[in-house]
């Protein structure tokens, strides 16, 4: 017998939905194997990882707190990914969102004004959009690849924040530690779930989901982006502007990432450190693909990825495993999603061995 990889007559709709499920399933199996290799009871470990964190209100709050920024950023990224505009710079846009929002927060924290938080939210979105506008401008003016530009700007943004926190924004009362003053109450999101850190920034993610669903599934502009991503020739023929799509995609995803940034700053952290994000901007890329670039899929994928972040924390605390275990789980899952996606357009067939050919 021989295995043959064969192109399907039409992409399988069933596999399109099944592929993330298969990927998640295989990830779980490999996690079990990893636990067993480390000499632990696999099932008990999995339970400690995936279920125990959710048994308390605190745990649920942490879960949603980690899922919300992932969902928020992923919805923004999905807009561009559908159009074939690859923004890999959400992490940097998140940081610049924090820089813009943080500047307001530090300056006006003492005022106690009820307008401060809305102003920080707007500034955060503007900061993220501004940082994403750089690759958009370079792409539309000079045809510079937005993948490279947005990726490299991540490092610029990180260095900018590091400079601020080590320099002008350092807390005078902070014993020289690289951190800002704690933000005032007026600059913080109110907590919405008693007994947890879950705060009102979670509604930003919910709003993004609803807006994203309408934009991607019902709007003419969303349709145009989709056509551009699928067949640029058809888009040019129909008169849909590629440059406009680049701008919409990058501004939307940049603003979403900036919002996620202020959600962290004015949420659970409440202060500005040199490191503000555990890699949400990169993990959101996985969430967007795992969720099939659809709003509903992203909601589930974001919750799952949030859980992976939690279990990574648990692995560090309980087993003393290094922090990179989270990245390992995420990478495993992204790899498996991409691998499973092959079966949407291909299938495997078992064929009898070819007869020996005549001379």
């Amino acid at each position, binding site marked *: 017998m021989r295995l043959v990889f064969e192109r399907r007559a039409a992409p399988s709709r069933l596999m399109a939905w099944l592929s993330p499920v298969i990927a998640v399933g295989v990830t779980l199996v490999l996690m079990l194997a990893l636990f067993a290799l480390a000499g632990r009871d696999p099932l008990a470990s999995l339970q400690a990882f995936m279920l125990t964190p959710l048994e308390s209100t605190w745990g649920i709050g942490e879960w949603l707190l980690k899922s919300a920024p992932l969902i928020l950023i992923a919805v923004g990224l999905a807009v561009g990914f559908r159009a074939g505009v690859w923004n890999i710079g959400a992490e940097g846009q998140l940081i610049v969102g924090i820089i813009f929002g943080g500047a307001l927060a530090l300056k006006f924290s003492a005022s106690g004004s009820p307008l401060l938080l809305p102003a920080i939210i707007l500034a955060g979105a503007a900061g993220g959009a501004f940082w994403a506008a750089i690759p958009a401008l370079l792409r539309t003016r000079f045809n510079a690849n937005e993948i490279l530009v947005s990726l490299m700007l991540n490092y610029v943004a990180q260095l900018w924040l590091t400079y601020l926190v080590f320099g002008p924004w350092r807390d005078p009362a902070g014993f020289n530690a690289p951190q800002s003053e704690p933000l005032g109450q007026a600059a913080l999101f109110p907590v919405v779930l008693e007994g947890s850190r879950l705060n009102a920034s979670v509604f930003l993610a919910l709003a993004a989901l609803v807006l994203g669903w309408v934009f991607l599934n019902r709007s003419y502009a969303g349709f145009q982006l989709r056509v551009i991503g699928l067949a640029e020739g058809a888009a*040019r*023929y129909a008169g849909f502007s590629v440059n406009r799509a680049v701008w919409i995609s990058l501004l939307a995803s940049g603003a979403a990432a900036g919002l996620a940034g202020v959600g962290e700053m004015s949420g659970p952290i409440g202060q500005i450190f040199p490191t503000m994000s555990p890699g949400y901007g990169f993990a959101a890329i996985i969430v967007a693909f795992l969720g099939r670039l659809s709003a509903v899929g992203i909601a589930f994928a974001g919750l799952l990825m949030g859980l992976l972040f939690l279990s990574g924390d648990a692995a560090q605390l309980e087993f003393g495993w290094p922090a990179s275990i989270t990245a390992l789980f995420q990478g495993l899952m992204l790899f498996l999603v991409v691998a499973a996606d092959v079966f949407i357009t291909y299938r495997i067939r078992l064929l009898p061995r070819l007869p020996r050919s*005549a001379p």
Partner: protein
Amino acid sequence: MTRDGDEGPSANRLELAGICKAYPGTIANDRVDLKVRPGEIHAVLGENGAGKSTLMKIIYGLVRPDAGEVAWNGTPVRIRSPRDAQALGIGMVMQHFSLFETLTAAQNISLALAGRPDIDSLSAQVAEVSARYGLPVNPTRLVHTMSVGERQRVEIVRCLLQSPRLIIMDEPTSVLSPPAVEQLFGTLRQLAAEGCSILYISHKLEEIRALCDTATVLRNGRVSGVCTPRDETPASLARLMIGAELPSFSRRVPAASARPLLSLEAISTRSDDPFGVSLADIDLTVHAGEIVGIAGVSGNGQKELMEVVSGERRLAARQAVRIDGVAAAHLGPRERRAMGLCFVPEERLGRGAVPSLPLSENALLTAGSGLVRHGLVQLGKVEAFARRCIADYKVKCGGTGAPASSLSGGNLQKFIVGRELLQKPKVFVVAQPTWGVDVGSAVFIRQAMLDLAESGAAVLVVSEELSELFEIADRIAVIAGGRLSPPRPTGETDATEIGLAMTGRPTATETAVHAMEMRLATRV
């Protein structure tokens, strides 16, 4: 695999028996038999999708059959790759040329030969073969500077240098002007007289009657008949090919009107693509109720002209394109569509339609203006529009949810034409309306264009099929080398005159070759 020396006069050069090949969703070849005698010009005739190309790929070793036998000079063989086929003595001239544009003719030919031939001695061989068969090729010329006809000659010479005993020609005349076609036929007859067999793939009935000794007709993957084309009429061949009478359509009386709906004025462009064509001083007016045809060999500026007309390429001089008297050269496709200009491009998948999207969303592609409110897509209206398009234009498909890529060429073209016509265009521009479209759909589409002109719209058709233009156009212009000849009323011109204009290239490098072409053509 070695060349079989035994060429008994009784043996067929090539014999196929019971060839079957299925792809997911379609059966390309179903128990196909084919016999080619030595020195015979054998036509394989069939509509697009009848299975001709698959069969040729099987003979040339590009595709393996699911079942069936292949015999070469009476000996059963298995052809696993083009290398096997060439070793037997089978050569193929593809429909789409496989030449490197940045290399010379001799360099291109050397790539196809075994070992590392010396370019100088190869050039001498090329010169010898091209003189012997009347195929003017300059070995040192770069391919991208060549006309399509010359590129085809390079392919043929490359094939001949391998001393083939069977040559497969896949739709060779689709890119040639009428004099070049005559010249090609002369070469093919000479080859046949020397004992080389030729498999000639085409759907052009007149050519096959003029050239071929025998014809095997394919329909839906099966052999529907074997005949001697000279003894048949085009109508009887068409019956074998499509399995029904050729549908006819009503020719309208040309409506005289002086209202110009589409005017092009002094359009000159420079091509960004080094292998593209620059347009020079193009003037054209299409009036209400009129069909104007643009003839020409492909690659002479049709693509560039269509981009200017559709708005995919905008011009700074606003008056260069006027739609119903309004300057539009600076506007994009959507603005022009809003002014009443609808356009059907020559590539259906990837341009006229998004392959992976369902027909309903493909309707939204250009018909957006009436189907969108407050920026939101009206799903019900989109669905209704697509259903109407499918019903009115007799599109065979799996419903509005079927992806565009699942439709046959003819049905997708009917859908695209229908989508544009349902928007009631004032000006309708269409490129290659019936390319790769089955005969029945082609007649339907031509009729739709005639009806549209009768209702008072201006229609501009770009086509490589001269017969099509003579059937429907009121006036015909010719594009060659980026220049457009003044349109002539169809009744006052004929295929010979148009054919000559198609080769009339004013560029200096082309002139010498064409002089040679013309001399050869008259000798044949």
